[in-house]
């Protein structure tokens, strides 16, 4: 799930889990997870049956959720305790096993957060989020604050989680398109609260359909000669204020292809070919 800050990607993934507290409200629509409609469930049902169990979210602020005065194992006990009554020894062995499976040192379980490096903390938090083997793991900007080598370690762990079938599917939210290219099968691009394009990663990256997706992708700068040759694209203006978005297509004020239709009627997300979708009347 890609997009610039403010596009709504974090709000979307929290809503997907019905982690919705005022002032955020779920206005309309349904959310189906593994055949179950979860949008009408109340918080206690969600805690019992969904959160951590069907779907787990590692939010952007995950590292700050770790209490500095609690060891990792205590944090785990708290988290699991929320979902079920289990014996501490069972939780401890689950945790040890999971850490082992993910090449995390068992000693980390008995350390305080400040004793662990940023990368280790992040991997520990992700490991904890998978303890009850949720089918879907959602991670929101898990590597933005990490240096590139630590980032790669965390990404490898996420890929390993899937390979080991500990989780089945993953939604990775980030502004970093090069990271998505390395691990995502499918990319969805958001702008101003809307999904503007989605499809298989390579198709979208090498041949974007939506003008915003095109600009965003061509603004990515990696140390590759192809990028130098391609040049960098920028779009004038900035994303709209969501309190008062433009009528019609939200991107039209900045779009090089905007026409009258774009300014008056909002385009829906439609299939453009195969498994590719775009919300545009004049896709490339």
């Amino acid at each position, binding site marked *: 799930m890609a997009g610039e800050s403010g596009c709504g990607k974090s709000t979307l993934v929290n809503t997907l889990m019905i982690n919705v507290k005022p002032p955020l409200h779920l206005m309309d629509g349904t959310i189906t997870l593994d055949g179950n409609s979860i949008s009408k469930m109340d918080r206690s049902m969600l805690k019992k049956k969904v959160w951590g169990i069907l779907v787990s979210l590692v939010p952007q602020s995950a590292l700050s959720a770790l209490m500095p005065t609690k060891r990792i194992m205590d944090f785990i006990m708290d988290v699991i305790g929320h979902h079920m009554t289990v014996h501490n020894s069972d939780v401890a062995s689950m945790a040890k096993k999971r850490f082992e499976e993910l090449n995390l040192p068992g000693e980390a379980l008995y350390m305080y957060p400040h004793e662990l490096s940023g990368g280790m903390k992040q991997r520990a938090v992700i490991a904890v989020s998978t303890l009850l083997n949720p089918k879907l793991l959602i991670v929101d900007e898990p590597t933005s604050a990490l*240096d590139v080598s630590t980032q790669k370690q965390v990404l490898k762990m996420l890929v390993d989680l899937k390979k080991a079938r500990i989780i089945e599917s993953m939604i990775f939210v980030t502004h970093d398109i090069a990271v998505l290219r390395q691990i995502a099968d499918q990319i969805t691009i958001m702008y101003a609260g809307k999904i503007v394009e989605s499809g298989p990663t390579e198709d979208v990256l090498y041949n974007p359909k939506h003008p915003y997706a095109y600009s965003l992708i061509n603004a990515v700068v990696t140390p590759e000669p192809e990028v130098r040759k391609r040049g960098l694209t920028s779009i004038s203006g900035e994303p709209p204020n969501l309190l008062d978005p433009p009528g019609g297509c939200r991107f039209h004020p900045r779009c090089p292809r905007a026409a009258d239709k774009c300014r008056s009627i909002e385009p829906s997300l439609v299939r453009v070919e195969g498994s590719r979708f775009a919300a545009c009347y004049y896709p490339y």
Partner: protein
Amino acid sequence: MGLFRRREIVAVNDVSFEAKPGEFLSLVGESGSGKTTTAKIILKLLQPTSGSIIFEGKNVWELRSLEELRWYWRQVHGIFQDPYASFNPLHKIDRVLYQVFSLIGYSGADGDSSVKEALREVGLRPEDVLGRYPHELSGGQRQRIMVARCYLLKPKLILADEPISMIDASARAGVVQLFLRLREHLATSIIFITHDLGLAYYVSNRILIMYKGSLVEEGSPDEVMEHPQHPYTKRLREDVPLLYKKWSEF
């Protein structure tokens, strides 16, 4: 009880390099590499424990009079990461531009038209930004105003510390272009301080890589990416996510 132990951290260790006129250099490193400390030393914001900064034949740390310091700060200009921090939120943005005139000792009549000209050079419409307060403008606009200052100041060397990291992705390329044009129009030397190897590769004539306070690699972008010498550079190159190639061990 309060027992203080003073620990010394060697932030920058034996770093030596040269910037030629009109050259675009990037100092690349991750946090803790010492790149920002190096930039502050060059800008005379931090004093080195040893070593010298020679600018146009003069040792910068021997400059004493206000006259000499002003000369230096006219020639060597800093642009920082947070485009909001460079502005006083209580003043209209016009101030940062007109301030330049007192720095260069200029009180000509056509100050207004110079300011408007500089704003246009950076792709801003004077009527859109003059008279506004910093919070009324976007990060990209604020950063462009900082670059507009350079059109007024015409420094010989610009040090830009992470100039685009706090700007929206869709607006970044525009600001990058501005720096390239600055160099083209004013033959200014530019030193970019950044953690972004991709950005450095794209804009620089030469890349210098810093790791834990030391300069570990130096070369053209292609040299650094194709024939890295230092293990840190090799690792960086392997770990940076690319757009056109997929990581093998995944």
